[in-house]
């Protein structure tokens, strides 16, 4: 039993802290950059920082050596994710290194691996995920997008919804039905598609917290048959394995991102009164902040438990869903608390001289509701109850 890092792991953590403190542009973390008004300059800054991670060998350090990584352990990867989330550097948040790349390693052909993995590892290919549709949210099997074989090409028609990064991605890793004569779970395939293909159009959807995601439309888009990834008509089963990578890679880093939010707020109230009061002296405020810090720590430990299991080669399902459940409960609790403590001032954005913390509290009031990714809360609980506790499905 050792619930802390080894000296070598501590040294890695220290190295990362130094790296992020040195490399993150001065003042970058003082304000919220909304993607909706993200300029070309903001995008380039994100890309430039991601390239720094590549230069220093951090970007795909969890990949096997043969694909350009360093075969670092899941534990090291988790240490990196914690630091990364806490220091919150600029990034374009590409889905390649955590989802598409690892997915291709498992199910891709040699040719696909050769073509895409080095490109993803160097960010020459930027990938987005095309899994969800207007009628396929929690139920990823109920898609309507179709891919019809025509010679040595597939012709894709349909639409994908809620697609992050589609407006700057070079490729989309997507699902489409390749056999419509059978139930959808037996007729789905995965494709990697060039976003510059003729017939693809992208239009924005703007989230409450000011992030741009997208609708992606496919009208007679011709895709070489060699871009079908994995086994034809086995896409749904292969997606399940890939989605596990999504949960691990993207969300495992999250608790420390919110610990940073809490730490910044505490630093702020130690140096500033809010609405004429020193909140650090108020016992109720102290207890509520401590309470949410405790939830963040429980979330962090539930992430670490997942990491520890994965480090032993396990693929835990219920334990992965627990991460989602506690995440979805803790983010709103933290943000609600902060904006309640800011009172009416929490409504003000950057630009008002009365805004608190450059309008960050206003942003949090909106971000609090960003709790739907990786399955809804009901679906998350179903997974925990059925796969973890062995409870039966309802049979009408």
């Amino acid at each position: 039993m050792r619930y802390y890092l080894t000296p070598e792991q501590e040294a890695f953590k220290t190295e990362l802290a130094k790296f992020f403190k040195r490399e993150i542009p001065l003042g970058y973390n003082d304000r919220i950059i909304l993607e909706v008004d993200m300029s070309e300059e903001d995008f380039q800054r994100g890309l430039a920082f991601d390239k720094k991670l590549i230069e220093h060998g951090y970007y795909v350090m969890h990949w096997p050596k043969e694909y350009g990584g360093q075969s670092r352990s899941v534990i090291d990867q988790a240490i990196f994710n914690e630091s990364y989330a806490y220091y919150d550097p600029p990034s374009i948040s590409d889905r390649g290194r955590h989802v598409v790349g690892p997915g291709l390693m498992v199910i891709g052909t040699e040719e696909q691996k050769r073509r895409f993995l080095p490109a993803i590892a160097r960010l020459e290919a930027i990938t987005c995920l095309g899994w969800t549709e207007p009628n396929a949210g929690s139920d990823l099997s109920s898609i309507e997008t179709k891919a019809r074989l025509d010679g040595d090409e597939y012709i894709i028609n349909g639409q994908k919804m809620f697609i992050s990064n589609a407006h700057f991605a070079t490729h989309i890793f997507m699902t489409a039905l390749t056999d419509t004569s059978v139930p959808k779970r037996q007729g789905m395939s995965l494709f990697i598609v060039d976003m510059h293909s003729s017939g693809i159009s992208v239009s924005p959807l703007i989230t409450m917290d000011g992030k741009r995601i997208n609708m992606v439309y496919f009208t007679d888009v011709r895709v070489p048959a060699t871009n079908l990834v994995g086994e034809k008509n086995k896409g749904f089963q292969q997606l399940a394995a890939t989605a596990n990578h999504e949960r691990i890679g993207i969300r495992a880093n999250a608790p420390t991102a919110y610990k940073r939010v809490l730490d910044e707020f505490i630093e702020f109230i130690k140096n500033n009164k809010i609405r004429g009061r020193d909140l650090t002296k108020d016992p109720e405020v102290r207890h509520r902040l401590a309470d949410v810090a405790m939830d963040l720590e429980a979330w962090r430990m539930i992430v670490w438990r997942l990491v520890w299991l994965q480090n032993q080669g396990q693929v835990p399902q219920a334990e992965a869903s627990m991460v989602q459940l506690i995440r979805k409960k803790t983010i709103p609790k933290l943000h609600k608390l902060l904006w309640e403590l800011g009172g009416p001032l929490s409504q003000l954005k950057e630009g008002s001289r009365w805004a608190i913390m450059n309008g960050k509290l206003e942003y949090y009031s909106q971000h609090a509701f960003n709790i739907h990714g990786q399955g809804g809360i009901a679906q998350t609980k179903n997974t925990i109850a059925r796969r973890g506790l062995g409870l039966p499905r309802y049979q009408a």
Partner: protein
Amino acid sequence: MDMGLSSEQVAIRDSIRKFLRAENTIAVARGAMKSPAGYSVDAWRKMGDLGWLGIGIPEQYGGSGLSLEELAIMYEEFGRGLYQGPHFGSAFLCGQLVLKLGSEAQKQELLHGVASGRTIMSLALLEEDARWEEPSIKLCAQRTSDGWRLTGTKLFVTHATAADELLCAGRDVETGGISLFRIRNPKALPISLMPSTFGNLYYEVILRDVLVPDEDIVGSPDNAWSAVQPVLEWGAALQCAEMVGLSQSILDMSVDYAKVRVQFGHPIGSYQGIQHVLADMWTRLDGARLLTYQAVSFLNNGRPAQREFAMAKAYVNEGAFQVALDGMQIYGGLGYMMEHPLPYYVRRILYGKMHLGDTDVYLEEVAQTLGL
């Protein structure tokens, strides 16, 4: 990061679990409500013979050595198996205090007995404030020519009528320092039961001009609190482990029940409304267990652990309480009946939550570690 148990720890866990399963602790808990001792003397003897009571006490003093980790594993099993007995007050609190503060002669004299269970000690700490805090110790200790004269009232002394000795905390009326005194024959003192949810557990002990010779001070005079505080911290971690075990049992029995209880033509466990309650219970429980063992691991290795154990106690308190409520929801009226085991688990959670400080105390400690 290693969240696993060693094979030796797994063996300890499994053998305690097996033993308690065979002991029918529910029947014992029911009986203990009325028995004079307040616990099963028979099970206590057997556990002493098996060497478990001496976990945490070094081998040279008759214990089996081992660390806070094994103690926590044992306490999780105590919770899971609903074991109740004087171990916490005797071998743990008094044993650890004697170990930290006592002279070599006192260690030799006392620890063999508490490690085997043949001697039962109890800590007389709380008074009318009922707070585990230094300023709340008010019992007067007056120096005499060859010792001390103690006067005051101690509350919530556990299993006092079964105790062979008490360790009593008192305040030097001149210096204001806290000392620990051995009271060798507590049965001669006025002891009265404090009737409570837990039957024959808590006693009020009145000391009126009780004379204690100098050699019966444990540790140096006036200097005991610096040892009491860390032992209480370890104790809080063990209370967490016990509540985790209690919660695990409530979850297990609730899952089993939900699979077989049929209402409206279906097992209630096939309804999402019930599944979601169980998913919440399990997630809370796992958070509680992970924070508990994080605290145990930190404390056991001498790392600064203020934040970790304060978070553990506050989180486990609230998590276990919610698991208790949720278990009641799954069982419906049945779980509220004293014929059913559930109330005994729930009551034990109420005890653990209160014991050594409730959530408010630990939230304030967490706030301080946040820099507030």
